[in-house]
Structure formats: structure tokens, C-alpha cells
């Protein structure tokens, strides 16, 4: 939706609580603790599968709740009958929770990394690149508003897990990640402010030499 302008007021709230309702906190915690949490890209993709009109009408944690249920079904961790009835099938094996209460702080503060070993990057800092005009049927982190636009590489971040592959369970397929700066005028035309820019973090398969 980046680049659309008529989505309504920004509506900042004074002294906003972390969660507005107890159920929001439980949805957040269940999503974080669920065995489906391992693949962050699959979780994002699941939320993107909510049809657009519903996606825009739902609150944030309604989207999380919908996606959590869908992922639990997809991984066969709960059955449709269990979800509908709210009771575990007495014949189903009982799992052991992967995340215990005394392990939560360590799990939240463990310093992970999405950097992996991979082939060296093709582009250098300062080099002009173009975001390719790609429209894949599945998950991607290449926003529509930069496709086909020209920018400059301003940083390299090593090779990171590639969401377009990882979201679909096809492996991490790490690819070099770059920060690319696009002039606002390149993205939005001559009426944009001449000094302004938008920078994005883009994987090498999204880019070509310009």
C-alpha cells in the first residue's frame, strides 16, 4: 500500500497502552509462543493472504488471530474439528510446549541473526541499480512502488534469509541484502520535494544494474 494517499486520518492516540484489550495481549503472546512462530516470513505471508477488503477492515490483532488459526491448521497442529469445537480430540497426542515460562526472557532477548553464508554481493556501495519489475504470485518484500525505479546502493548488509523462498517453506536461500536510496522525484514525479528520498532494504534478486 506504500504510496497510496486516501486511507484516512493518522489518528495518533495520547498515552496509548501497549495492548488495548486483554485478548490482544493473548493473541500476541500465542503467536510469539506458538510452534508456528519459527518462520517469520511464513507468518507475514499468511497475514497477506487475508483478502484486501477484509485486511483493511480488520484491526491489527484480528489479523494476527486469523493468521495464527490458519497456520495452526496448515501445519496440522490443530484439526478443523478441534478449532470449531474448542476441545482437543481425545485421541490426539499431547505435545510439550516448546516455550516454557522460565525460558521466555531468554527467548525474547537472545540475539539471533538473519545473516547467512552465501555468494559475494554483485553490487557496490555508490552503484546505480534499478528495482526489477517483478510481480511474483507469492510472498515478496519488494514493494510495488519501487518496481522499475532507479536508486543508489548506500549500504550492504551481507547475505540475509530470502523471504520469497523462506515464506513458502522452500529454504532460506540467503541472498545479499542492500540498502537502496531512491530520490522522491524518481518515485513520485516532478512534484515531489527535490531533496527527499526513500531508502529500502532490498535483496539482490530484486535488483539489476542501471
Amino acid at each position: 500500500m506504500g504510496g497510496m494517499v486516501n486511507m484516512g486520518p493518522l489518528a495518533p492516540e495520547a498515552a496509548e497502552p501497549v495492548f488495548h484489550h486483554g485478548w490482544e495481549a493473548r493473541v500476541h503472546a500465542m503467536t510469539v509462543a506458538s510452534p508456528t512462530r519459527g518462520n517469520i516470513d511464513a507468518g507475514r505471508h499468511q497475514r497477506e493472504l487475508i483478502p484486501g477488503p477484509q485486511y483493511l477492515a480488520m484491526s491489527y490483532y484480528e489479523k494476527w488471530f486469523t493468521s495464527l488459526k490458519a497456520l495452526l491448521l496448515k501445519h496440522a497442529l490443530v484439526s478443523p474439528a478441534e478449532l470449531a469445537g474448542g476441545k482437543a480430540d481425545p485421541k490426539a497426542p499431547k505435545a510439550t510446549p516448546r516455550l516454557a515460562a522460565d525460558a521466555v526472557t531468554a527467548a525474547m532477548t537472545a540475539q539471533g541473526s538473519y545473516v547467512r553464508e552465501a555468494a559475494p554481493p554483485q553490487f557496490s556501495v555508490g552503484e546505480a541499480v534499478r528495482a526489477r519489475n517483478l510481480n511474483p504470485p507469492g510472498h515478496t518484500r519488494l514493494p510495488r512502488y519501487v518496481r522499475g525505479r532507479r536508486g543508489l546502493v548506500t549500504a550492504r548488509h551481507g547475505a540475509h534469509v530470502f523471504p520469497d523462498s523462506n515464506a513458502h517453506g522452500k529454504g532460506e536461500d540467503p541472498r545479499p541484502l542492500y540498502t537502496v536510496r531512491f530520490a522522491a522525484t524518481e518515485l513520485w514525479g516532478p512534484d515531489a520535494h527535490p531533496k527527499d528520498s526513500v531508502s529500502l532494504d532490498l535483496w539482490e534478486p530484486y535488483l539489476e544494474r542501471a
Partner: protein
Amino acid sequence: MALRVKALESLLVEKGLVDAAALDAIVDHFEHKVGPRNGARVVARAWSDPAFRDRLRADATAAIAELGFMGRQGEHMVAVENTPTTHNLVVCTLCSCYPWPVLGLPPVWYKSAPYRSRAVIDPRGVLKEFGTELADDVEVRVWDSTAEVRYLVIPERPPATEALSEDELAALVTRDGMIGTTRL
């Protein structure tokens, strides 16, 4: 919603997929242990300790970890510094990416369609709605968090704060100042 969520939680607990006490601990973590007070300490340290500021520029993840802030959604940190001629603004147009260890969970407006859609095309209009008017010669740099890199804005140190301690400086730093929607 509350009843449906409760029903799912009961089912997941019954099946052994989640532990209710672990859920309590997660809620406590996000309500009490992370939040913008952490980020404010990073900013105050950057203002008062030039060697720390250098380390923050070179490797923000490691520098922030010196203060004990690390973990999920803070794995790859970059600090972007405001100056008299440059203003930084952070958004995630694709979802709700936000540096949890230093800012906690994002406010509703940050993860809602109006901000996600407009921040990239009309940053000055968005800033104005937050009461932030920028001169025409100030460059606005918008950072769209499309990967696992997370951005923290280091606001300009307010004038006449030379005598303040690091704790007093941290008290001046706001969440919106570290997202970039306001200046201090």
C-alpha cells in the same frame, strides 16, 4: 473477540502447544520490560558519549547490546541521526516492522494503513499532522523497513542541555522522536 481468543488459548493449552504461564510472561515482557525508555537510554548515551556514538555509527546492534537491549526484532540495528539539515522518518509499508528491544511494540497508528501508505509519498504532510513543520531546505530521509534491518532515529540534542545528566537527557527523548514523526 475475547471469547474466541480464550477458546483458542484453552485449546492450545489442552493440546500442549502453548503454556499459559509462558503467555503471561510474554505479555509481561512487552508491557513492562521493553519500550521507548530503552531507546531513550541509547539516545542519551549517544548524546553524552562521543565514543559510544562512534560505535553506534559503526555497528548499532553491538553498541545497543552494550546497554543490554537485544533480541527479537532488534537483530540488525541501524541508527540514523537527525541534523539541522537532515530529518529521518521510519515506516514499514509492508507490515509493522519496528525495533522491539528499544521501542517495544508499535503504536496502532504506526501499523495502520494511513501511516504505512502515506509516509513514503507524503512524509512532510505526515510530519505536519504530528505537529512537525520542516523548513524547505531540510532533507527528509524516509526508511522503509522492508527486511530484518531495524532503524532507530537519533534525534538532535535539544539546546541548553549541556548541564543535564544522562538520566535527565533520557527523560527528554520521546517514542515519536525515535520514529521520526516529531523533533524534540
